[in-house]
């Protein structure tokens, strides 16, 4: 643990500020480090700035007329603060955006094809697809149906599979557990862990479901009102009394009232 933290991180984000429409400050000096090969979680309630942090890293802010007004983001030591989204994907950052967002009118197989980097050979693409179908056997069964009609869990798997086709070194996921049954969340998180171990892929996971996230990550950041308010190992965070009270439901198992309340708030906040 100690050695890894001291090695050069694959991603380092230093005091980043993001402005939307040139007026709304969404995150205020967020610094996050992702050590190579580790799984890191960004926790926090809705509107805290977790998604904005991911978008700042993946370059998707532009689509929402947001921009990084201060700070810098380095990926493998290289400054990518102003790089285009597609160049960041080429460098190895892929962002599984919130709400699944598969290409609904394409088949799962075509969804994977669409994400293939230009210049990837047909045989490499097919090998990648088979690897992804091996991780998600449910997708293999439905590879030629229409993606819009897959179940929520299958769509989330497809969204992750689609990101894997880009062969990322850093995989970022925005609320993959949203709206999914607990057993599906466990299945998907299990697969993420497996990918992390087998491929050494670094993972940055944004979650409101802190309980599930802290089970699989090594380190977490707690974001509130656009700032990092706490940072520590998963163990330290799990035993912290504030976290227990506000994010883990009082430490007495999962409080579904609390969880439900959060996801309901989300609809009008974001």
């Amino acid at each position, binding site marked *: 643990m100690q050695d890894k933290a001291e090695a050069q991180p694959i991603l380092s984000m230093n005091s980043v500020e993001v402005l939307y429409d040139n007026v709304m400050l969404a995150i205020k000096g967020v610094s996050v480090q992702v050590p190579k090969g580790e799984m890191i979680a960004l926790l926090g309630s809705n509107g805290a700035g977790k998604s904005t942090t991911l978008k700042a890293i993946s*370059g998707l802010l532009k*689509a929402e007329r947001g921009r990084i007004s201060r700070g810098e983001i380095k990926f493998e030591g290289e400054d990518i603060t102003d790089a285009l989204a597609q160049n960041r994907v080429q460098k190895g950052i892929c962002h599984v*955006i919130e709400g699944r967002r598969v290409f609904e*009118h394409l088949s799962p197989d075509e969804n994977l094809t669409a994400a293939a980097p230009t210049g990837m050979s047909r045989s490499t693409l097919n090998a990648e697809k088979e690897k992804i179908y091996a991780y998600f056997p449910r997708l293999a069964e439905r590879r030629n149906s229409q993606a819009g009609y897959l179940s929520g869990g299958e769509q989330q798997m497809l969204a992750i599979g*689609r990101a894997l086709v880009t062969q990322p070194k850093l995989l970022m996921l925005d609320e993959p557990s949203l709206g999914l049954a607990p057993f599906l969340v466990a299945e998907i998180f299990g697969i993420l862990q497996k990918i992390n171990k087998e491929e050494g892929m670094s993972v940055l996971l944004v979650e409101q479901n802190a309980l599930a996230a802290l089970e699989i990550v090594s380190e977490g950041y707690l974001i509130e009102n656009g700032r990092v308010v706490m940072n520590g190992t998963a163990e330290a965070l799990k035993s912290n009394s504030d976290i227990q009270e506000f994010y883990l439901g009082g430490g007495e198992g999962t409080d579904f009232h609390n969880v439900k309340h959060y996801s309901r708030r989300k609809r009008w906040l974001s």
Partner: protein
Amino acid sequence: MDWIFLSELAINGALTGLLYSLFAIGLVLIYKASSVPNLAQGGLTMLGAYVVVALSHDAGLPLWLAIPLAALFMFALGFGIERVALRRLAGRPVVMILMLTLGLDIFLRGTTLAIWGGTSRSMELGVSYDPLFLGDIFISRIHLVGAAVAIGLFVAFMLFFRSRTGIKLRAIADDYTASWSVGISVERGVGLSWALASVVAVAAGVIWGEVQGVDQSLSLLLLKGLTVAVLGGLDSILGAVIAGIILGIIENVGADFIDPLVGGGSRELIVAAVLILTVMIRPHGLFGRHDIERV
């Protein structure tokens, strides 16, 4: 009932309809890749025809060279339109982009008027005006050529949308943000769709220029082309082809029945009725994709 006359009307209607399809394929290409109906497709078709005439008659090039050169020019122009105008509007409401394409159409009409004037010019493809006889049925040769071009383009684009680039374009139409998130260059994809639609505009411009002469009225093909595209489903190439045939037959046969009763001019009415009824009864057209709503 004169069956020979009726089938002549139907066959020539279908051929004319395929010429509408030729135009509508351009609309579908852009809609398929960016979910925007391109109101400038008429202007592009007219410009395509003018460029071919300028290269062949004014610059003296043979047609076999003038048409590919015009296609190349229009291909570059399509990319240019995305680069200069559309890129700034990415992420804005569709109605803004719609207004932009309308403005572009007016701009193109004004430009061709300024450069080449308003008198109608002929394309002179060299296709004989003698009708072809199929038994007792008259068929116009140029319509037959145009229908063949439409079907050729249909096959080419059906194959294209199964290729990797084609799949990426369909992905862009589905979701811009998701496309960006996996590294698809949405800008380049939209540019490519405009470039291809501009090449289709050259094909449509050449055929329609031969049929009705090259002048600003070519841009009014948009009305019929849009009707065909909407009836076919806006994002379906197959739909555009079949809807073109259907509209052509309804228009030709229907006008023959109704015109004597109302004293002419019922063609436009039939087209308008088809457009309005499609939108009211079947907004996704014959083959259009439906919005997927899972419960």
